[in-house]
């Protein structure tokens, strides 16, 4: 069983009278523990696909199996739960709360976790996460007092606070220079290899993609190649591939 499986996912935006089809039948699978890069031209629908994968958006049609559950028809509250428990999301623009310490940014998702944690437990978990991304000495810095790379690492720590099995990152290095990009990418690799976290990241950069074990290419709302890993290609016919 794959951790993530998409079957004929379509997404069409409606702009007044005009229908804008963005995803035109995407099928793919990602097994647990993979590090996958998603590449494609601008406007090809990468972010749209990532939003659906991250349970932030609903597909117009198709099935999305995440960890054995079909989540595309979930209610808003159920999807919020899934986002909280099973998914970590890293944004291109960090999206940290300003004037809030790194530690509090990291522990923020715990507010919405069903099981109650004491302030001490929250603090400990937040510090553990910051240590994991190597920022334990910056826990009381505000985002404006951190470099871009550090901010993105805080964002990664925040995404990991609930120990989700999968991490989605939409152009995580898009706002970073090549040196800090390297730093962040090394972090992703380490998380993938040491902790077995499944990671799907969107990138334009071929060198970034080269870090991944598999690259999915998307073009104009359709997956061109890499939809299935070699192991699973045997069991599944290549869908939508050329």
């Amino acid at each position, binding site marked *: 069983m794959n951790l993530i499986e998409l079957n004929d996912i379509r997404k069409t935006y409606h702009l007044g009278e005009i229908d804008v089809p963005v995803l035109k039948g995407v099928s793919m699978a990602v097994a647990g523990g993979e590090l996958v890069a998603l590449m494609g031209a601008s406007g090809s629908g990468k972010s749209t696909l990532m*939003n659906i994968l*991250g349970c*932030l*958006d609903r597909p117009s049609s198709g099935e999305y199996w995440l960890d054995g559950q079909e989540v595309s028809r979930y209610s*808003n*509250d159920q999807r*919020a*739960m899934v*986002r*909280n*428990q099973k998914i970590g*999301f890293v*944004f291109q623009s960090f*999206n940290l*709360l*300003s*004037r*809030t310490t790194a530690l*509090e940014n990291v522990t*923020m*998702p715990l*507010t*919405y*976790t069903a099981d*109650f944690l004491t302030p001490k437990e929250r603090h400990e978990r937040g510090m553990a996460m910051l240590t994991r991304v190597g920022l334990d000495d910056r826990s009381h810095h505000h985002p404006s007092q951190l470099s871009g790379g550090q901010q993105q690492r805080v964002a990664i720590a*925040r*995404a990991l606070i*609930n120990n989700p099995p999968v991490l989605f990152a939409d152009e995580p290095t898009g706002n970073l220079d090549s040196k800090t990009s390297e730093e962040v990418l090394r972090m992703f690799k380490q998380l993938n290899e040491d902790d077995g976290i499944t990671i799907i990241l969107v990138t334009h950069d071929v060198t970034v993609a080269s870090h991944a074990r598999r690259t999915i290419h998307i073009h104009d709302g359709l997956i061109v190649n890499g939809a299935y890993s070699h192991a699973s290609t045997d069991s599944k016919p290549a869908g939508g591939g050329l």
Partner: protein
Amino acid sequence: MKLQGTLHTAMRALCRNPMRALLTTLGIVIGIGAVIAMMEIGQGSSAAIQKSITSMGANNLLILPGTASSGGVSFGAGSTMTLTPGDYEAIVRDCPAVRCGAPIVRARTQLVYNGRNWVPQSMSGSTPSLLEVQLWKDLADGECFTDRDVLNSNRVCLVGQTIARELFQGENPIGKELRIKNVAFKVIGVLSAKGANMVGMDQDDIVIAPWTSIKFRVSGSSLTNTNQSSSAAASAVNTLSQVYPSNQVALYPDKSDTQIADSMLTVRFVNVDQILVSAISPEEIPAAMQQITAVLRERHRLQRGEPDDFSIRDMTEMSKVLTSTTTLMTNLLLCVAMISLLVGGVGIMNIMLVSVTERTREIGLRMAVGARSKDILWQFLVEAVVLCLVGGIIGILLGHGGSLMVEAFLHWPVETSPTAIVSAVGVSATVGIVFGFYPAWKASRLDPIDALRYE
């Protein structure tokens, strides 16, 4: 436990922009502050008005004996002698709505001291409690007579300021002996000045003595109506009585001493002319009247259906004035309070809406990491309520401080009002909920992707 987290988040969010939070809540601060200050000053003045009206006798009830009539001729109020000192004692003892009371025996005769004479407006025989009933402040000088003086009909008296001035001409009256209808009374106290009453009568032109002394030593007879006896007594000294004779024609020849001694008409009961009582508060007046009626009917053994042989008068007009001023004042303050809180609430709503728009990305982010729409709703609602409550508390402190300053510098009467404080807290929380709901609801309805994309 969940609420604690929400509260924490809300507080954090507010603390990220303390200046704005403070400015937002300024409307509530001013509103609540004004309400508290006005309530305290208003209650202070209304209490002061109440006190001054009370000192004019708004709480007092006057119990008069019933009306005698004979052959269709009514002799007017107080023409029978149905009230006894025992009635007075029973009323004070058995009526819980009565604070205190005093029996009154009236006389009107001439005072003589050192060759000067004077007829006071009011000469009352009573008990020491009269001073309490009539709210005489402390005596200007000397001391009041005691219950023992009343028991022994001692010849002591208190005089008012007017008498001290007119009869004693600036001498200290304490310890001097004046004569009331040829009976020597020792002045043991001088009443403090009270001025004229509502109808312009000089309240300082008064002599107060133990009622037993007035009754038995001055009025002389306990069986004659004092209205008539006093005029008779006055005429005995007043030379004008020849010009305007007020003596009744004697129907029977005067009794000789032997006849009087033999007469079986000894005094069975002693009557008093009036009983003056003071209710606990103006609101208790109807209750006091009911209790007094019950006690007196019982004591006078009146059958059901028989008319009362006494009447009770209250100062209805004064208490009406009192209640209407207080109600008017309260309503006025309430209106002002409502308007200022409304303005404050609209201010909160305005800033909360701006805040929701400004923090759209934050809302999107919170939703992306797992906040449900009701979590967002609660967060913004709690923020608004916290803002309003903090504003309310600052307002209470400012308002209270302001009213204390008014008291200190302008010497206006001020009264701390716990009710106003509690309701101010309640009202500011309500304002927070009412005006915070729409922005919070708007925030909770945002779509996570749109919110995250918002620039």
